[in-house]
């Protein structure tokens, strides 16, 4: 008993409770986001969206998820089986682990690592690996297309993303997410670094493969892109990962630019979630308004415009900090 009590008071218990909480949050959040996307899309398109299951279709996505669970997991003959089976897991795990360091409020954080931001960025890169695995193992031309596009796109957009993050790190002097938020108690960094914020949002949209940068799964060109051959729960995992990635990207943007949990009256967690969902709404707004960019334009945009701009922003930040 003594040992148990000792254990519960430690970091280990915090991790276990945290992980259980994260898994619950991820599932509920993804279900909510898919419903939200359908509703946002519907209202932008002059239609009501899902209305039948639950009030305003609120539990439609629960029904959909249950249906997907009941579906057969089809493994086509020609696929590279081990990689094909592994890809949905590889895409999902890093996203899950990223939640470990997300500071929902000053106390609601599972593990406040001093390299938090680096951890999130590293894990977010891993999803490209999974997409490449999925596309390659599917042994389908459209899937390979999607995978190759995804790799090229993610490499291109990772660079400006990291550089913009660097300019914030320079200002704070810490990789710790809670430090970054604490530094914004007076004013949000979006006011000091508006360009960096815009760059970050563009890059994050591209990193999460969202429209107008949704080339890896461009349905009018590549049918369904890298997950063409996936069915049932495996497909659901890709879907879940996409929406959770969106949440992570928005959470990082909130931490870096929108002052994290800071805000008057309401508790910190509420403020944090409000800001995150506002950013997610922005990304949904992009998706249902813009046409898709072409592949060469996408890469040109990253290499010729975003990277120079991000570098310029970093240099100016460094210069201002030095002179101050």
């Amino acid at each position: 008993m003594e040992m148990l009590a000792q254990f519960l008071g430690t970091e280990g218990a915090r991790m276990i409770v945290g992980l259980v909480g994260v898994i619950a949050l991820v599932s509920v959040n993804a279900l909510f986001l898919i419903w939200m996307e359908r509703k946002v899309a519907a209202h932008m398109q002059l239609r009501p969206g899902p209305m039948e299951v639950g009030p305003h279709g609120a539990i439609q996505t629960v029904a959909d998820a249950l249906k997907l669970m009941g579906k057969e997991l089809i493994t086509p003959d020609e696929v590279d089986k081990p990689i094909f089976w592994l890809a949905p897991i590889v895409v999902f795990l890093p996203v899950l682990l990223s939640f470990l360091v997300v500071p929902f409020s000053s106390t609601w954080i599972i593990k406040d690592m001093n390299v938090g931001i680096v951890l999130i960025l590293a894990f977010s890169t891993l999803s490209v690996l999974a997409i490449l695995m999925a596309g390659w193992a599917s042994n389908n031309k459209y899937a390979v297309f999607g995978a190759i596009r995804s790799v090229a796109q993610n490499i291109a957009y990772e660079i400006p993303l990291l550089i913009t993050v660097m300019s914030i790190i320079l200002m704070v002097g810490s990789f710790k997410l809670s430090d970054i938020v604490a530094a914004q108690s007076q004013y949000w960094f979006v006011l000091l670094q508006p360009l960096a914020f815009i760059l970050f949002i563009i890059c994050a949209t591209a990193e999460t493969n969202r429209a107008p940068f949704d080339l890896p799964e461009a349905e009018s060109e590549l049918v369904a892109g890298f997950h063409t051959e996936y069915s049932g729960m495996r497909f659901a995992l890709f879907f879940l990962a996409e929406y959770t990635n969106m949440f992570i990207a928005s959470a990082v943007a909130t931490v870096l630019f929108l002052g994290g949990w800071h805000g008057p009256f309401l508790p910190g967690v509420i403020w944090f979630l409000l800001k995150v969902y506002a950013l997610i709404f922005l990304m949904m707004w992009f998706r249902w308004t813009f046409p898709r960019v072409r592949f060469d334009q996408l890469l040109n945009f990253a290499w010729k415009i975003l990277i120079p701009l991000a570098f310029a922003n970093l240099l100016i930040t460094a210069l201002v900090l030095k002179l101050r």
Partner: protein
Amino acid sequence: MIEYDIEEKTYTLNLGPQHPSTHGVLRVLLEMEGEFITKAEPVIGYGHRAHEHMAENRNYLQFLPNMGRVDYLHALAFNQGYCMAVEKLIGVTVPERAEFIRVITAELNRVSSHLVWLGAYLLDLGAFTPILYSFDDRENLLDLLDRVTGSRLTYCYYRPGGVPTDIDEEFITGTRAFIKRLRTRFADYDNLVTKNVIFINRTKDVGLITKDQCVKYGLTGPFLRGSGIPYDIRKSEPYSAYPLFDFEIPIGEKGDILDRYVVRVKEMEQSLRIIEQALDKLPNGPIMAEKVPKRIKPAEGEVYQAVETARGEFGCYIVSQGDVKPYRIKLRVPSFANLSILPELAVDTLVADLVAILGSVDVVVPEIDR
């Protein structure tokens, strides 16, 4: 050291017949080098229904419903082309009111066809929302056409000699309201589409067609006009009541897919103008010619009648040998000629461009396969 002997530098990609952006059952065999296309070959015939052969086995009136199935989007123009050819063959003049009704309904149908194209084309470019806006507009239009023609898509409304049912007051007020509504919607489309920098980048200088190429391939319709040739059968070989109305032929400058977009949107505006004028001038009188025989049995002879559909020139060539059935009917359809330029346009473009070009061709596959 291992030496790899890599002979094949290209690979084949099969686009269709079941692909989200081939608009039905068109299949394009692509030879690709990376993301670039080195060769494109349209494979057609999946929707072949032998319409021309069917014509040889049924009488003139029985063939009429087939016309709505050839081009399901602008069915009334095909109705009109066929009816006018038969009228020529049996020597019947259509009363003026019937001609006016034909013009009004055919132009409404042209607008609905262009609205479908607008949505589908932007869907090909990856913008999902416009299709729901254009289908919302089209819905009003289909209700109007449903009122007079009795169906929403595969119309069979005109008859040799006129039209079977008259339009009523409710149709006229409804049409006027629709015109007013659509004019305000053009501003929305402009904001959503042509002011969008991604759309402009995707479409500018893509799929360029010169005037020479257009003539060489026999392209017609918005394709030809997008390249700057003001050829429209409604003006160049006026038929029906079109000479009575004042309208312009919009033309593009360069002939890229952006010009084709602009031309089609302007055409919708012109169609609205024509409908408005026709409603203003609508004469009273009969809607059916008096001397149309119950059993159409024309004398020996051949006729050709061309009309302007939403996609270009539709020509109906009828050979009669004095029987109740036509000896042979040849349908000259615009999409078939317009698609023939695709292999030339597709070379050295990306898959995304090919999809955009295919969208700008505005193919109706049953029309190609016939």
